[in-house]
């Protein structure tokens, strides 16, 4: 067995069905430890996040506002998984997969709540007021296992080059070439210049980009989806009915997904849900750690909201468009099915290309920051500029070739990030529970010993 076969073998494990059950189990455990926070405190979650968007910074630690930190995290989280991933889930698992995607999202809200809470609680604060945080820090400082934190950082630093960079740039290059006829070399140059500009300003400039671009792309995508739904309004209620019916009767048969077993449906729904919202992978915690916030739990609410926006809102709209139009029943490649669903809008291809480009660019920039923070954890501040330079170079060449080995390696590393992170979430579940209880008792948060 050669190295790539080994990597593929590991990839199969880390993205396999059993691992998905682990994600769900950890999410359920955290749901219980936090007193069912995503259900019992849903009103507070909304008031403390969307209800407080106009607020700027809170407290003195951190470099960006809680909203900006969340937009950086959402910039990385929202991507092709919210569009193509949902189409794949329906094509593989039928409409019932969406129900299980929702379940993964609801459970993932507690997971990401815990990640954000721990990221702020265990972040490292420097003399100049800047901070660094994320799973590598809560593993090292919270569990007292710096080697495990370093392992997470290694996975994240490598994963950033693949799923955060090459995959995104090649998707953008493809969209530009197919829709606008732009050669990939120009797309690579464009991406490299934009990324270089964003990265040169550090987290503050990345956050400034994200706080504008991410809401624009969310509203743009939702506007397109709502427009498509209006043209197929009669299909909306049957779409909901099909989701719930198929979720509990998987063998009933629905078009392209005839003969879907319960396992296939759950795997498609949960798997694509996790892939879409990234709850449990730990990546978003690196962004949440940057928030200027007075209490970790307050940022935790943003973590939960991030999953809600990703999976419950955006993925649901994608699913409703696909199901109400019904073009998925004929089968086909996910992107083609998707384009077919939006074709009633006229310039569907161009609109989807614009949305994809926005999704891709924000992912590119946010993942650059994740990788840089992970590399800094491993090698110190001196690595920041070399890492940025390498990232920009890879962004340039990303659209020129297939780089399949790098993508497979980074995809595996992305999956592996979950292992140390999920271990930490389970072992630090008590800390999350204590901080949550303290917050709802009006107690101030004391820094960890």
């Amino acid at each position, binding site marked *: 067995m050669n190295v790539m076969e080994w990597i593929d073998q590991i990839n199969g494990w880390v993205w396999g069905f059993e691992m998905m059950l682990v994600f769900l189990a950890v999410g359920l455990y955290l749901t219980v430890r936090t007193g069912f926070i995503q259900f019992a405190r849903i009103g*507070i979650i909304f*008031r*403390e996040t969307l*209800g*407080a968007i*106009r*607020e700027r910074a*809170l*407290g*003195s*630690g951190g470099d960006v506002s809680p909203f900006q930190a969340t937009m950086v995290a959402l910039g990385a989280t929202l991507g092709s998984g919210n569009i193509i991933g949902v189409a794949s889930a329906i094509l593989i698992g039928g409409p019932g997969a969406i129900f299980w995607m929702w379940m993964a999202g609801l459970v993932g809200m507690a997971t990401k709540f815990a990640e954000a809470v721990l990221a702020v609680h265990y972040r490292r604060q420097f003399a100049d007021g800047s901070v660094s945080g994320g799973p590598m820090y809560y593993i090292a400082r919270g569990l007292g296992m710096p080697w495990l934190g370093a392992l997470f950082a290694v996975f994240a630093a490598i994963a950033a080059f693949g799923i955060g960079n090459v995959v995104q740039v090649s998707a953008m290059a493809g969209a530009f070439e197919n829709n606008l006829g732009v050669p990939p070399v120009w797309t690579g140059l464009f991406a490299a210049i934009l990324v270089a500009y964003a990265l040169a300003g550090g987290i503050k400039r990345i956050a400034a980009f994200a706080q504008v671009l991410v809401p624009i792309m969310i509203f743009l995508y939702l506007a397109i989806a709502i427009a498509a739904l209006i043209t197929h309004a009669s299909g909306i209620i049957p779409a909901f009915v099909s989701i719930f019916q198929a979720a509990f009767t998987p063998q009933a048969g629905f078009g392209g997904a005839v003969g879907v077993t319960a396992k296939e449906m759950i795997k498609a729904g949960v798997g694509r849900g996790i892939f879409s919202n990234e709850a449990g992978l730990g990546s978003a915690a690196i962004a949440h750690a940057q928030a200027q916030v*007075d209490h970790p739990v307050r940022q935790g609410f943003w973590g939960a909201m991030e999953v809600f926006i990703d999976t419950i809102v955006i993925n649901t709209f994608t699913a409703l468009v696909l199901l109400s139009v019904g073009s998925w029943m004929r089968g086909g490649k996910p992107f083609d099915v998707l384009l077919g669903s939006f074709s009633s809008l006229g310039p569907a291809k161009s609109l989807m290309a614009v949305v994809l480009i926005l999704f891709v660019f924000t992912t590119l920039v946010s993942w650059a920051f994740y990788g840089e923070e992970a590399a800094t954890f491993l090698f110190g501040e001196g690595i920041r500029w070399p890492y940025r330079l390498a990232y920009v170079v890879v962004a340039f060449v990303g659209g020129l070739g297939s780089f399949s080995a790098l993508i497979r390696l980074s995809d595996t590393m992305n999956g592996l990030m979950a292992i140390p992170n999920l271990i930490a979430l389970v072992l630090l579940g008590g800390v999350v529970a204590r901080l949550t209880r303290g*917050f*709802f*008792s*009006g*107690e*101030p948060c004391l820094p960890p010993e």
Partner: protein
Amino acid sequence: MLKGNLSEFPLGTLIQTLAAAGRSGVLVVSPPWIEGRVALRSGGLYAAHAGAREGWEALELLAGLPSAPFIFDDTLPLPPEPNLALPLEAALARILAVSDHWAGLTHLPADWRLSLALSRKSGELKLTPVMLQVLGLVEGRTIARILEEAEAAPVEVAKALDRMLAEGVLVLRAPSEMRSETLVALSFYGKETGVAYVDEALYREWAKLLPGAFGVRVKSPRGQEAVFKVRPRADIPGRIMLHDKDLRRLRAGRGVKLNVHPELRKGG
């Protein structure tokens, strides 16, 4: 034109810098309660005025300001008559020595707009002639006015005030115009309502200015008003934390700007 604040450029350093550059002009120091002017001619000290104080005593008084905006304007006319005859080096050395004395006064508040009153507390304190002089002036006057009007040198008056405040002979009277703050609401949860948390630094400032237990009167933009107990909390600058239920009673929410006025509590 040179602008700044004495908190960043202490008076001694500022005069030394201007003198070294051989500047002529007037340094105007403007805390809210007094105006001070120090005139320089060709880098030498020429004249100083601070309220009713003149000459060296004015410099001594201005050296006690930990924070005040200043402007050095070389177009302002110099006073007709000089009132400082000290050689520059000697004057600077004296300013530094006096500044050290001021820095050691821990009970005298930084805000000299506050009034003083005799307390009812009994006890033994051996009064010095300066203290006796100050006690004759104290009732109903602000600290700034006492420092200006007492016969003794400002730093001696300040030392006497500091000592009598420390011993409880004098108390700070709640100023009639305690400044309101505009703070952004932040919610907290739990069982305890009727409590407001403000940033530690603001709480300390209020505690220094108010002689007894105090609370805050909070007004919302919709005109609702309520009084809360107040407590300090770390790391919430520019914020006031109120219980979620209290915020709703005020018809306000997180992120709303509230007018917050500190006031003495009854019996406090």
